[in-house]
């Protein structure tokens, strides 16, 4: 039985209102044929206090509470439409759902439900509690609406995915309360960059997204992405700290990049991934093909993470010779990845990737331990050179790992040589130098690898006294026909002599090249001409006393 049904009976009976009505939680008003209030129950009376509603029109009554729409409530009955609740917002921010029906006996009944709590809770469910921005669910809901309306008008809709760069470092070093304060400021900066109608949401710890509609694309998305990168990268002053973070942005635009909400969101995420891969602090647009490349990367990542456990990695060793005596003085350990379907994956393809996905430390440690163990079993005490990635210096465990590898393998410390590139010295130089000095004190030799490429800052040669400089093969290739390369090589070797460092030329492939590097005064040589990388077993054979007499 409905309220209205029971009211019909009441009115028909022309009795004083029955006892249940005054006590109902919902506010109920009965209007006469002139649309003036004839009766209010206790809830309604309380609602409009101190105004006495009797004799008022709904418009006057609503106005007294700061709401408008008294006449619109009648629209349904006046047009014989199905009655639908109308939401009133009172000046004290209470929300009332107001339904009006005509009574068969003449007049109208109005019921008003206080839906404030219900609506607030629903709003809260759509908000990110920390920043007050929309949450992921609300973002998607808004996107569904925008795309539906854009589909009718033919307008473009852009989705921008924004990731904060270096936020985690701030959060980890300065604590969550500061990280939270930073996120709130970032949210404010988002709001300051957006136009009315744009939607910004926080969709993860340090991930935000923006929906931009009714704007000329891609110009508007380009402008907004550029602005956001600039704005978010500006310094923050919070709780007495100066904080610096950055932002990377991925953009996908409907309908070109997809018109399904989830496809568009995924494509914006793919574009963001590209922005991050290309150095962060920039924006990238989605391009067809990103998805396939992403799938390919994912599958490569899965394979690479398993490679160690599946024993697909192998070390081969390339001999290094003393140019004066032609004796083998050591081997450089080189990694090989044999994959059942990919075949032999070159290190220049998977090592940078291993660095990117964070498995380089595990691989680097395996290389170090394996090389030490195998070299310890060699019949001659020649050196074993192991490459270190710059990333292995992070985490502060490198020296311990080296000590442990030496102890476990029983390899004499003087036989171990670590090769680093100047990339290792680019960041946190002091920390890296501390580790290098510690290793040096243990008796480990340290070489500067790939010398001559990259920045080739001579400052690094001053900061740390390397045992050896490995001259990159790009200077050795065809050196016999390139006077400039010969000049560079001579300069480097005389520099090394002055600094009391040895030099080794890499990538020697012809006799003519060998003659040149000998003439330039290099100490050592490594290359296809003097010896290709070989499996551990071949090293054993090569180092057997019977074989070692014949070198090159």
């Amino acid at each position: 039985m409905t309220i209205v049904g029971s009211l019909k009976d009441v009115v028909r009976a022309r009795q004083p209102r029955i006892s249940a009505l005054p006590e109902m939680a919902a506010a109920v008003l009965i209007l006469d044929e002139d649309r003036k209030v004839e009766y209010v129950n206790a809830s309604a009376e309380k609602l409009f206090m101190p105004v006495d509603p009797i004799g008022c029109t709904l418009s006057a009554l609503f106005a007294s509470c700061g709401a408008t729409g008294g006449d619109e409530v009648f629209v349904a009955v006046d047009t014989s439409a199905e009655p639908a609740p109308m939401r009133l917002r009172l000046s004290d921010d209470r929300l009332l759902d107001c339904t009006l029906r005509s009574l068969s006996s003449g007049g109208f009944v109005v019921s008003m439900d206080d839906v404030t709590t219900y609506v607030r809770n629903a709003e809260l469910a759509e908000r990110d509690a920390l920043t007050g921005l929309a949450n992921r669910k609300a973002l998607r809901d808004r996107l569904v609406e925008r795309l539906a309306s854009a589909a009718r008008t033919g307008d473009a809709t852009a989705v921008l995915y924004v990731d904060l760069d270096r936020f985690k470092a701030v959060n980890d070093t300065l604590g969550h309360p500061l990280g939270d304060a930073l996120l709130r400021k970032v949210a404010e900066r988002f709001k300051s960059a957006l136009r009315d109608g744009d939607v910004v949401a926080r969709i993860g710890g340090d991930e935000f997204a923006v929906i931009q509609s009714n704007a000329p694309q891609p110009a508007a998305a380009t402008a907004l992405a550029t602005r956001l990168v600039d704005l978010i990268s500006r310094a923050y002053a919070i709780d007495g700290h100066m904080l610096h973070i950055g932002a990377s942005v991925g953009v996908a635009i409907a309908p070109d990049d997809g018109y399904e909400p989830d496809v568009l969101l995924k494509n914006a995420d793919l574009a963001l991934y590209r922005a991050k891969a290309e150095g962060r602090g920039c924006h990238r647009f989605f391009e067809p093909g990103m998805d396939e490349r992403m799938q390919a990367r994912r599958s490569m990542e899965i394979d690479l993470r398993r490679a160690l456990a599946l024993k697909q990695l192998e070390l081969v060793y390339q001999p290094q010779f003393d140019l004066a005596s032609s004796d083998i003085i050591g081997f450089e350990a080189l990694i090989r990845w044999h994959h059942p379907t990919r075949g032999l994956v070159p290190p220049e393809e998977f090592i940078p990737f291993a660095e990117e996905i964070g498995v380089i430390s595990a691989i680097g440690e395996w290389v170090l331990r394996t090389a030490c163990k195998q070299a310890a079993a060699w019949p001659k005490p020649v050196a074993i050179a192991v490459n270190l990635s710059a990333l292995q210096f992070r985490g502060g465990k490198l020296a311990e790992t080296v000590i442990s590898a030496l102890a476990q393998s029983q390899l004499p410390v003087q036989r171990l040589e670590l090769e680093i590139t100047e990339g290792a010295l680019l960041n946190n130089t002091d920390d890296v130098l501390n580790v290098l000095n510690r290793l040096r004190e243990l008796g480990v030799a340290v070489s500067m690898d790939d010398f001559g490429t990259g920045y080739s800052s001579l400052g690094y040669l001053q900061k740390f006294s390397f045992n050896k400089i490995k001259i990159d093969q790009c200077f050795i290739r065809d050196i016999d026909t390139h006077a400039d390369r010969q000049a560079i090589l001579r300069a480097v070797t005389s520099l090394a002599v002055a600094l009391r460092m040895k030099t080794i030329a890499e990538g020697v492939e012809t006799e003519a090249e060998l003659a040149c590097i000998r003439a330039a005064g290099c100490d050592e040589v490594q290359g296809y001409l003097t010896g290709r990388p070989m499996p551990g077993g071949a090293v054993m054979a090569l180092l057997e006393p019977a074989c070692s007499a014949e070198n090159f």
Partner: protein
Amino acid sequence: MPDDLYRLVYYSRNTITGDATALAAAITSILAKSQVNNQRVGVTGALMFNSGCFAQVLEGSRSAVEDVFERIQQDDRHGDVSLLAFDPAPARAFENWSMGFVGASIDDAARYGALVQDSGFDPARMTGESLFETLRKLAIEEEYAAA
């Protein structure tokens, strides 16, 4: 403590487009607005415009300085903002300036920006401390000149 006295020094690149008149108008408006806002929250300091750069010192309670700086950061009339210093300060250096404009008159700054650049003064190459000292000295000179 949020109410401790802090000093903040930054410089940024001007992104206001237009001729000297437009620039002068923009700077006048920035100054007027910041003077009103700063007075309300007890922030003092100085703004210098030079070589296409803004250099500014803000001093006041930590929370007020942070709020004012955040508003400045969201302003798109400048870019490449470098925050040079943000530290506790023993006392205010710009006690009487809700936001002083120092170094040159607005018109001169706009008109002679290029000349100043040629003379080698470049806030971008200064540390927070030296930029602060420069602004402080210029402010004192300005006060003398006005007296």
